[in-house]
């Protein structure tokens, strides 16, 4: 089973935005909410002429331990066998809790579809053997996509042998699978200006109440109900049918037998005998 990931080569990337336009047009995200992937300039920092500039190229990281999965109340968002974090649009109710639960701002609400939208690593294309749109279009060949677990792949080498870096901090280390190689100074600028947000590791306050209180409570009540049922069932099994409806109380007359007929009137009784 492949485990997909991507490497962004900061030495090659020129920040041209081709990848964003390719993704927008491939997946037809609305122009004003385009967010499946992004190219964000970090303008020159420093003092002339000792300056550095960088480009933060990002997309959903399809993390090892995605913080967005448990925020979803319907189970619409899931992680497939290849590690891709996806949204089942049939189940998505557009509540947006998962949007808040991504420290990389990788998810967004698509107002046209009225669902949550995000990078899918171009799953439908990749599953047909075609590389993601962003990777194919990149004019500097700065994106490397592939199976992290294939020792013959470029990405395996870049990540496991050459030490491509994860955009993680001590506070947010959920195992993103978009890595960065190249200029350490540029990577450092990205980490400083766009670190993963530790306050976005779960759903929003309303969703937090849902997640921390209501959802566990709901399951607790449901669980207790089932537990109660289970206890009752096993108790019946062990003790027999003692409390059934037709079990008479001990020492009481037999209700099933009819009452004896009342004796007839005495004069009717004598007359019958004297005829």
């Amino acid at each position: 089973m492949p485990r997909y990931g991507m490497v962004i080569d900061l030495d090659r990337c020129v920040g041209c935005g081709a990848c964003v336009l390719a993704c927008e047009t491939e997946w037809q995200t609305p122009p004003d909410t385009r967010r499946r992937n992004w190219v964000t300039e970090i303008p020159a920092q420093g003092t002339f002429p000792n300056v550095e500039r960088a480009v933060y190229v990002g997309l959903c990281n399809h993390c090892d331990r995605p913080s967005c999965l448990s925020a979803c109340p319907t189970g619409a968002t899931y992680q497939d066998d290849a590690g891709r974090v996806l949204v089942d649009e049939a189940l998505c109710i557009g509540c947006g809790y998962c949007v808040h639960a991504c420290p990389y701002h990788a998810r967004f609400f698509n107002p046209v579809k009225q669902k949550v939208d995000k990078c899918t690593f171009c799953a439908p294309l990749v599953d047909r053997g075609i590389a993601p749109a962003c990777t194919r279009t990149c004019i500097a060949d700065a994106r490397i996509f592939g199976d992290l677990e294939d020792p013959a792949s470029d990405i395996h080498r870049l990540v496991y042998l050459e030490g491509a870096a994860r955009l993680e901090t001590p506070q947010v280390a959920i195992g993103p699978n978009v890595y960065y190689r190249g200029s350490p100074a540029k990577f450092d600028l990205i980490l400083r200006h766009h670190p993963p947000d530790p306050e976005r590791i779960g759903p929003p306050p309303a969703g937090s109440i849902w997640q921390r209180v209501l959802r566990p409570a709901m399951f607790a009540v449901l669980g207790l109900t089932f537990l109660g049922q289970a206890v009752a069932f096993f108790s019946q099994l062990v003790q027999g049918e003692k409390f059934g409806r037709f079990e008479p109380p001990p020492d009481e007359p037999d209700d099933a037998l009819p009452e004896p007929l009342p004796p007839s009137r005495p004069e009717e009784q004598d007359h019958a005998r004297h005829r």
Partner: protein
Amino acid sequence: MKRSPTLSRRGFLQLSAATAAAAVAPRSAAADPLRRKGRFGDREAVLVPSICEMCFWKCGIRGKVVDGRLVRLEGNPDHPLSRGRLCARGNAGIDLLYDPDRLRGPLERVGPRGQGRFRPISWDEALARVGAEFRRVIDAYGPDALAFFGHGTSAKYPLSMMEHLGSRTVSSASFFQCRGPREAAYTLTFGMTPGSPERVDLEQARAIVLLGTHLGENAHVSQVAHLAEGLARGATLVVVDPRYSVVASKADWWLPIRPGTDTALLLAWIHRVIERKLYDEEYVARYATGFERLVEHVRPFDARWAEAQTGIAASAIEATADLFGATRPAVALHPGRQTAWYGNDTQRARAVAILTALLGAWGRPGGLFYPSPLQLGACPCDPKDDPARPLCPDDQYHFRQEGIPAHCIIENSLADPPAVRAWLVWGQNLLQSVPYPQRTAQALQRLEFVCVVDILPTEITQYADIVLPESTYLERYDGVFAERNAKQPFLALRQPIVPPLHDTRDGFAITRGILEAVGRSDCLPCASIEEFIGLQLAKTDISFDELRRKGIVEAPGWPFPDEPKLYTDSGRIELYSQALADKQLPPLPVYTPPERNPPGMLRLIAGRTPYHSFARSLNNRLLDAHVDDNPVFVNDEQGRAMGLADGDRVELENQDQVRSGPAVVRLTPGLRPGIAYTWHGFGGRSPALRRGFNRGWSDNTLTTRFAVDPETGASGMRVNFVRILRDGVPLDAPELEPPPTAVFRDRKHEAAAPPPAAAPASTPAAAAPPPRPPADSAPPKGGC
């Protein structure tokens, strides 16, 4: 070298006329057996290979058509240069096709010229009017009274038409406002231009030198890819630019040069390379001429002299020259593209060419390679060599190519009496591309007749008497491209991905229509562009159908011949140019110091954003959503000293008191003080382009001065200065001259170090990070 199995050397021999492809009627894409099928989402799509024209780099594209609608544009993996890559603009080409503001049919002016009021008319009416007017002007004033400004792939057909009509009053913006100086310089030195795409072998270079070329922000796809590859293979990058461009941030050496002093740097490099015997002695002895005179000429121009001129530390000038010596001949000295800067530009480009020659890089791997001899069939309607002396003074611009300078035509249109009476403007928004647009507008009002051919209702169309709408690149054929300037040469076909949406025509048909209306259809024997393509292919053994199916056919090339082929008069590389001397122009490069900034003013310099093609794409909805405004970038220290803050809204007023619209200030440490930098082409003033109207501010409106290059007539445009005003109050820029400097980063070893967990010591003192944007806000658009 990979050779196409279908095209052998015999393919270059002329075949009999019977094999020339007959006119082919355009077929419906869906029914066409030549078309491959693909998918878009869960729908079946027809795939059509073609060539992009969001800019003029000609990357390969593949259009996906579902139920007759273009749904996606991707790169064509078969294109030997772009290999499936496609920039932001190429991906966004769908919006050009479906742009609601597109010209939908011919238009005739109603009301005064310049107000952009038109009524729709038929093609027959429109062409009849154009033909009649051209005929009248030619008959009354002579053919030179009819002028042509052209740009784009289809401009070569009307250019040829002009020649047949006898007019020499033609101007190509891509020469006179762009490539001119380097074309002249390399032709003088080597006997040929460096080509487009430039024939720099970036992939195999050991050292790469960029003078102002901001590759990456200039999204010339294959060249960016080759640069990235060359750097990945370990080339050392030297970037000479007053601005910390994206590519400067990848450089080993960033030389933040004082604007206008590049020639001084080049002369010092030549001086050092000669003094330390870093040049290829054998190569120079065998192939070059004038070396001894060059030695004498550069004697005074040492690194210390150049430091005082350029603001670059002498040690860096010497170290980079030594680098070239160590890495030659694999030194890719990029010849530049837009080289019309200060009016002394052919001299600067000559210095680049001379240094290239000294290093033995011309015709060598890692340097500059040779074009392929690939030839297509010639149509009698193909333009020939430059016409003889037209409306330019005889003693000027001897080394120009592609017509005469635009300003000659404009001045001749305003003369008393005017020598030029009618204009045909083709695929060129003159009011954005040619400097001093105010003068152009005056000329437009003087003319007796103006015909404009365009795709969108740009500013220039608003001045037309007749507008003829051309089909977009997605709806038409163009003549087969013979790409000679690639290590893997090829033929490429631009073909319709969808039929024309509106009542538009391809450039060939428009030209033919005008010629017929003028009474000269003898000049264009082909009935259609398809027939013309057939003639082109007649010299090969490739069929039209094969080319339609594949889009690309590779051809042989010999980029690195054993012996350089030199087409100069002397048959040698002319370090000393006798041709220049014969015209009383400096035969060896001369440095002219730039003028100083007027007190309180900044020099206006413009470049590119990768999301747009100057003014061409500003109405594009997809691209506009990313970049819809052009900031004015100012050095942060200088800006703060003026009282500016990042994000301030200001106006700019130039040396001729012309004032721009509002501009947003971006303060940056990545720009040498003394400069106001922006992206060219914004501030569109055609209300018919509803999305692009008034977006940003126009640098061209402030380019009222231009410096004419004596060798070519090209217009140097970096000679305008601006004062910044906020709320109408002028803010004087203080004089701020940094000490001589240079930046060296040991990039290779830096890259080898493991990425840091926390802020590393090696990064420069950083400004405080900007405030974090609110959750889910869109990322900021644009950058420095």
